[in-house]
């Protein structure tokens, strides 16, 4: 469903992505792990069109993303591929419900009445059915991130990109969020998750992909990556992750 080939992204003289290729099937959950600065977040941001790239190709379904995309094709792409950020980025001037309604109303052009049932249903699904009229600043970080997930789901995307969804949360709140994501995986939503939560990657992902220095070092089923890594960089990273 998402295919990336030979993606190159440079920031001035710094090469952030150096020929990344990857394919994500429909319903597949891919966890992307690896040392900081390896290009994990940048890869997700490129897929969603928040960053431009210099070379290579990204295809989502039949939509091909060029290195200089126009606004229209970007919007089409973003409707199909949602995104959840590390810092949640809820809209602070709107209620929780209005945050979730933003996509259906402004992107899908639905009326409030049309969109509300699904929005409420999604908020109940992430366990926040009681907080419809709360303001984002009244919520804990974990609750805010769950609203952000509901917001992304509300435009009925085919895939969601998670950019370190639990890195800004303490462990208890992180677990709330991870269980929501696990729940989505069981519903066969296509997902790419950049994460430092190794237990989660191991348990939920179909494929684990290790990125370092702007390349895919190796990828494979969780068992193989965690128990029998082929690459030196993977071994070093896993050792480090285990000790910290």
């Amino acid at each position: 469903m998402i295919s990336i080939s030979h993606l190159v992204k440079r920031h001035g003289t710094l090469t952030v992505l150096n020929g990344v290729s990857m394919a994500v099937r429909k319903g597949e959950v891919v966890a992307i792990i690896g040392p900081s600065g390896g290009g994990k977040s940048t890869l997700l941001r490129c897929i969603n069109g928040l960053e431009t790239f210099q070379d290579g190709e990204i295809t989502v379904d039949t939509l091909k993303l060029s290195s200089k995309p126009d606004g229209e094709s970007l919007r089409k792409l973003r409707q199909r591929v949602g995104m959840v950020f590390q810092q949640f980025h809820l809209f602070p001037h709107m209620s929780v419900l209005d945050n979730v309604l933003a996509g259906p109303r402004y992107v899908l052009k639905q009326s409030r009445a049309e969109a509300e049932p699904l929005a409420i249903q999604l908020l109940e699904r992430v366990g926040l059915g009681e907080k419809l009229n709360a303001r984002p600043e009244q919520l804990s970080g974990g609750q805010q991130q769950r609203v952000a997930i509901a917001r992304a789901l509300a435009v009925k995307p085919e895939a969601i990109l998670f950019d370190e969804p639990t890195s800004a949360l303490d462990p208890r709140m992180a677990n709330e969020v991870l269980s929501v994501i696990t729940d989505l995986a069981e519903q066969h939503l296509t997902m790419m998750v950049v994460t430092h939560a190794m237990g989660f990657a191991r348990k939920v992902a179909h494929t684990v992909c290790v990125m370092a220095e702007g390349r895919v070092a190796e990828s494979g089923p969780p068992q193989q990556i965690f128990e029998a890594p082929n690459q030196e960089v993977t071994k070093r990273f896993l050792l480090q992750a285990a000790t910290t």
Partner: protein
Amino acid sequence: MGRFLWVLPALLCIAVQIQADALDDVRQRGVLRWGGDEEGGAPYIISSNDAKTPAGFEGELMQALAQRLGVRSEFQQCQWDNLGDLLRSGGVDVIVNGIELRADRLRSNISTIPYYVNDLQLLARANDKRLTGWSDLKQGKWRIGVLSDTAAEKYLVEVYPQTVKTESYPGTTQAMDHVRDQQLDATLTDLIAANTYRDRYPTLHFVGEPVGRGYFVIYLRSDDARLRDELNAGIRDMLADGRLQAIYEKYKIWNEAQRTLGDPDVQSTPERMKPADAGSRGIRVILRNLLVLGESATVTVLLSVLSMPLAILIGLLVALGRLYGPAILRVPLTIYVEVIRGTPLMLQLFVLFYVIPSLIPMPDDLKRNFAWICAIAGLAINYSAYEAEIYRAGLLAIPVGQMEAALALGMTRRQTLLRIIVPQAVRIVIPAVTNDFIALFKDTSVCSAITIIELSKRYSIVANNTGRPLEIALATAILYMLMSYPLSLLARRLEKHTKRVHV
């Protein structure tokens, strides 16, 4: 602090002493200080190389009068409207600038004998066939420019109350400009000025006979009778030995009417004109003028509430254009902000009101409301530059993540700005914008330069007419406070509110 309180009464005593005897003071100091307004221009006061001794017939008259007292004359520039205030404040000994002898001014001042006989001349466009004589003003609707609070204004209001609407200009030539540019039907001005500027305005001509005979006099504070007597003696001397006629001939303002200056009847006019009663004071003078002050306060409010929303809207659009607009817009918008911020409001209003009509003709409806349109547009444009900067800061304060989150949902840039970024920025800038509103509210006073009589201008007029500036200033200040204090409260509340929500 308290130890030094005795200084105040002491200072007051000194001040009173200074005012008590200006003649001795002038002699001691060796200088006769006189106030006038150079902006009125030729031939009254004409700037020379020495700013303290300007030329012009009044400049030369004052030099001669000072010489007779054995002192130098020293000119002090002041807005014409505020000359009365300058005299009362003790900043000058006398004021001289084509100021007519008027009963109400004699309530709080004394005057010399007349030094010039002044008639008023109506000026209109030579090709305007509707207006060829005074009788034409009896019918129809006419807009006639005058200097505010002058004999010309009073004459028109008294003689043609139904058919003539007067417009108050800050200067003679500005009214003439507007007659030439068809913004006004005519202007009623000192015969002197009409003669002096004849060549500059070839399309204008004299209509009818001069009217409204009056006298120019020198005003002094009421305590300074001795100085007044000396000046009177000086004027009489100059009348007798022909020096006054020589000055007037030099400036081409001598005419037969001036021969009456020697008549005892004319010389005693100030004595006869002096009002028997001192006029009302205290709370009564305030109450008597409250209605007219309140009316002008409405003008101030209207100017503010009509211009500020425009300023905010233009400012927001400029800020959005600079931050998110196409690259070709950014440089012009930056220039707009810098030019508008870098030039005074007064100049901008002048350009709108006096320059534009000379460039483009406009329909009558527009002409009638032109001052208001210019005032509102001028204030809106001026403040839009400041609002643009405030909004720019507000927009930049919104985290990039907000834009990314909205875009990632599939929203367009326009939707993102309108629904996500701008609403948050508005909350941030509300206190600053409210503060600017209070500033704009007070800046409306500049609009008097383009014939709009708002509260500050009304203060000058009423203070001059009543001779009670203290009471009128107090009433005016209270009116301003009554209007701006609720705004301050609102600003403070909004500030607290936005801090609590910390968007």
